[in-house]
């Protein structure tokens, strides 16, 4: 087991290293380059040359990459130019991380809590009207652009009916900040109205964000349970006369959930891309929001830290999923 984890960790270091290389070249090939991004198009050749020297852009490329790498490892990505001009890019990332974690967590919770039972019921009653209906819902869920669904929810439930707040993370009711996880803060400081307000703001964005993970997890659960139901050991268990609850829990669900666990892990990583769109619609003030604005205003320092962080988070989640999988399924370890 330890060897498995070490091997995966080494692989992960390799992937992150290549990613940093890609990011470095991506930044260098951006339209106009760093100098134009800072000075604008109309700078004089003298100031351009001065800044090029100051930024070290006249040095050999491997020296530049080494500097980029050491800078990135120390968390120094420079100062934001578009999202929050003048603020350190790393600070923006750390300030906004809790918002996105809160949102993604709730979205994933909604998706999992709905998708697994529904997927199981669907498979048990395959080809019933309920099953067909749910399959259609899951297919439509993938076909709807996430940001359009977010707009639709916001328009119907916030603008037309005023049931949910239109945007932001919390009403301005003077809440104490402890961890920047607003729901958790309210519970810690016993300002329960703060938690309630934060939760109300979370409902619509997380429902919009949950659609794709829901559709994917639902279909994997359904397919996986269908597979397991056809296995010989389930038939054997049934013919042995085991009671239905034991068969359901021990033989069907436990085996069927293996691929579901990995899918959930994968969807966690993919949530960030969806969060870019959802947070933008609800002006949620998380990482996704910052990424959307950074793309629009070409805020390179912020893009640098956010993209590297997003990829790193994705890779780490994949690693955790692999380890979880090796714990659940011993066959994986020997590969």
């Amino acid at each position, binding site marked *: 087991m330890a060897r498995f984890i070490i091997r995966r960790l080494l692989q992960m270091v*390799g*992937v992150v290293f*290549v*990613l940093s290389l*890609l990011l470095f070249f*991506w930044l260098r*090939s*951006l*339209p*106009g380059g760093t100098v134009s991004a800072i000075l604008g198009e109309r700078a004089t050749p003298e100031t351009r040359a001065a800044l090029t020297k100051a930024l070290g852009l006249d040095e050999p490329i491997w020296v530049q990459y080494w500097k980029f790498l050491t800078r990135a490892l120390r968390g120094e990505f420079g100062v934001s130019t578009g999202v929050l001009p003048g603020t350190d890019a790393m600070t923006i990332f750390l300030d906004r991380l809790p918002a996105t974690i809160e949102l993604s967590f709730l979205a994933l919770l909604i998706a999992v809590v709905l998708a697994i039972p529904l997927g199981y019921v669907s498979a048990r009653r395959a080809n019933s009207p309920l099953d067909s209906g749910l399959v259609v819902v899951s*297919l*439509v869920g*993938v*076909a*709807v*652009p*996430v*940001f*359009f669904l977010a*707009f639709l929810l916001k*328009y119907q439930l916030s*603008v037309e009916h005023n049931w949910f707040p239109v945007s932001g993370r919390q009403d301005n009711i003077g809440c104490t900040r402890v961890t920047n996880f607003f729901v958790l803060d309210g519970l810690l400081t016993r300002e329960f109205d703060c938690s309630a307000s934060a939760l109300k703001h979370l409902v619509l964005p997380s429902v919009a964000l949950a659609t794709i993970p829901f559709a994917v997890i639902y279909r*994997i659960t359904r397919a*996986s349970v269908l*597979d397991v139901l*056809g296995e010989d050991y389930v038939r054997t268990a049934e013919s042995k006369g085991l009671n239905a609850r034991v068969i359901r829990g021990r033989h069907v669900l436990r085996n069927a959930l*293996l*691929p*579901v666990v*990995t*899918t959930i*892990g*994968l969807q966690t*990583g*993919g949530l*960030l*891309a*969806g969060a*870019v*769109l959802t947070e*933008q619609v609800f002006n949620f003030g998380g990482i996704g929001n910052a*990424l*959307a604005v950074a*793309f*629009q205003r*070409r805020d390179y320092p912020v*893009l640098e830290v956010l*993209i590297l962080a*997003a*990829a790193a988070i*994705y*890779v780490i989640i*994949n690693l955790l*999923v*692999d380890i979880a*999988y090796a714990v659940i399924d011993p*066959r*994986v370890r020997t*590969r």
Partner: protein
Amino acid sequence: MSPTNPMNRRKDRIDDLAATSGGTATLVREAGTVDEKPGVSLIASAWKRLRRNPVFLIGAGITLLFVVLALVSRVIAPHDPAVGYLIDQVRPQSNPVPGPQPGFPLGADDAGRDLLSRLIVGSQQTLIVGVFATLFGLAGGMVLGILAGAFGGWVDALVMRIVDVLLSIPSLLLAFSIAALAARPSQLTVIIAVAAVQVPIFARLLRGSMLAQRHSDHVLAARALGVTERAVVFRHMLPNALGPVIVQSTLVLATSIIDAAALSFLGLGNPNDRQPEWGQMLGKAQTYIYDYPHLAVYPALCIIVVALGFTLMGESLREALDPKSRR
């Protein structure tokens, strides 16, 4: 790596899809011996099942309708989509979007152009985005996949490490990053950004099913007969490995149209809207979305229906080609 392992990490899931094609050859042969009808090809047997599958028929019907609409759109559109006929009625403050009126059943957009005509003609560019994004992704993936699958060994290892790194970035985020590289965004840069995301997926898929072919008996037989290496790869391995790739292509047609809309929404899409495209219309409608939601709803519905059509077709194709579901 065993193909029976129900792993569903992204790359292993792709490999699983690929493995289904490895099994089809033997399965068809078995079916042939049982039925005493040799020569029933995979395609013929799949078609026989698809013909009676309502899901496939609905999907294929939507797709056919969409393609025909795109082909004749210029002829049946009542107005020129690029001309602001109702520009006189546009008042940026009080009335930015002219409403429905005789001759303009859906009204106009904020430049006074007929909305119905733009929706009809928009099918053309939408089809172009979908088809070319899929073709570019397929072409890139084919080159990498064939390299890795045909040679194996260190070429395979090198190509697959690159592919794995690309797969380690959330795909939509990768598309955003590539689109941001364009100094002058255009329809082409949108297509390239959306296609690039698909390259690693296609590569991994094709490599997997090529590897499955490499170890199959008919390839061994061809080698033993002295068939040249190039002919083995292109005439014996590649055609048999294409099944999962074709299925994936139908699904990518849907995702690329949706992804292109997301790019427009973030302002990374094609800024020139003389040639309308549904994703672009939807992305740009956000300015007026609370006062004039119909500007967003019509293109969104078009995208949803078409994406659903492609998805239904792709999913039923996968089922028909999957030996497991034929038991």
